């Protein structure tokens, strides 16, 4: 079997030759495609720094083999803004100072985008904190992160309502 994998990454279809089936999605993004926005923290599914959207769902890129995801659609932090226009979650993180060192931030933001898409937490901060528990922040910026996710949820829900009207 050829070890190539075809993926749609940030809306661009790409075929990547793999010399080794051991490559994770995280290493594929960072080491083969220079998409270093997705961070490698623990590399064991414990910190959430590598969170990406895989077919629209947030997952840990460190615990997914690239070869196993033929045909998948991947969205990383690099693909979130539209040109200069930040995604509402990105804008809310800046507005609420939801980071200090910033290492966990891409994972936090991708996880929040996934959380809002899942629609299970609403804008209840308690449900949101539980829903974000797979993303650790060593600087302890959790308060700002929660505020940012609440605000982004509210603004995105309002926008959806306006679009529907």
């Amino acid at each position, binding site marked *: 079997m050829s070890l190539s994998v075809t993926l749609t990454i940030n809306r661009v279809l790409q075929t990547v030759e793999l010399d080794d089936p051991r490559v994770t999605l995280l290493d594929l993004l960072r080491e083969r495609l220079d998409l270093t926005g997705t961070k490698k923290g623990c590399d064991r599914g414990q910190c959430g720094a590598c969170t990406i959207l895989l077919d629209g769902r*947030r997952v*840990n890129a460190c615990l*997914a*083999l690239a070869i*196993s995801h033929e045909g998948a659609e991947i969205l990383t932090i690099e693909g979130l803004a539209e040109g200069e226009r930040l995604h509402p979650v990105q804008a809310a993180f800046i507005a609420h100072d939801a980071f200090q060192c910033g290492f966990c931030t891409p994972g936090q933001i991708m996880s929040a985008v996934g959380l809002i898409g899942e629609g299970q937490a609403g804008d*209840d901060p308690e449900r949101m904190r539980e829903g974000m528990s797979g993303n650790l922040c060593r600087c302890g910026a959790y308060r700002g992160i929660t505020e940012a996710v609440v605000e982004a949820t509210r603004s995105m829900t309002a926008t959806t309502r306006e679009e529907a009207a």
Partner: protein
Amino acid sequence: MNRFEYVRPRTVAEAVAAAAQPGSAYLAAGTNLLDLMKIGVARPARLVDLNSLPGLDRIEHLPDGGARIGAQVRNADLAHDPAFRRRFPVVAEALLSGASAQLRNAATVGGNLLQRTRCAYFQDTASACNRRVPGSGCDARGGENRLHAVLGWSEACIATHPSDFCVPLVALDAMVEIEGPAGLREVSLRDFHLLPGTTPERENVLAPGELIVALRLPAEAAGFAAHARYVKLRERTSYAFAVVSAAAGLRIEEGRITAARLALGGVAAKPWRAEAAEAALAGVTPDAASFRRVAEIALAEAHPSGDNAFKIELARRIAARALSLAAAGTPERLPALPASPFAPVPGGLHG
């Protein structure tokens, strides 16, 4: 991570044939397997990828009232399936108390049953571990063992099974459908995992090449939907394995319990069904004193395997709390922190 051969079968028959060769492992999401491969605990020569197999990702609600869940169904999809959640709320609560949202989006039903223990000595290749290297000894005995087993352990191994999902499943008499070189067979989840005895390396009844294709919940399991809860004590609020947990289901008619289910997690190498406690609940008034009494029965055979005597009393209290919460009624909507023992008990039934 060791090098391995990668195989992508298109049918279950192809998968079973490929995995029957020595050194093979099935790859579902890989959330546990890849982690263990990175730390050198799992070293498969061949990975048989299940992600291209058709038909294993369906949740079927059967005409008889039971449910059949394909092995490749993701944990989050099962927990959020409205019909499944309504009929088996205790299973949804357990699923949502496990791991993180990212992991639940990836991890599969079949893989959950095959999770390896989180014993630190099993995970550390420099330590002696009879489960990882048969006959090498057990560094958990006399080591850091406050979270280890209090039921069903042996001198060879004191590890626990980490699954939340399996705890209500075993309480509800789930069946495991298994395809293998010799055809399809079914095993009750109660008999699926093995206690360590002198062969802790044998963790379940699967033979080489055998593949879990589905789980089934019988129609009677839905009969507990109105009074069913999972309670899980963790060392932090979220995203942690259970220190101890309990799944409880009751049927209550005219103020008396007519049927009860109780299982414990975090206490043994398998999800622990507490049948004697269930029997003692029949005909009983659902109150705190009764629940405390049957919790004693559930833990009657428990004994510490190290610095973990506290887990026995803790398990009694978590079992009693799960029964009290179940008696109070399954909530319309799961709490913000699923399975948290710190939620108040409605109706004054304090465990």
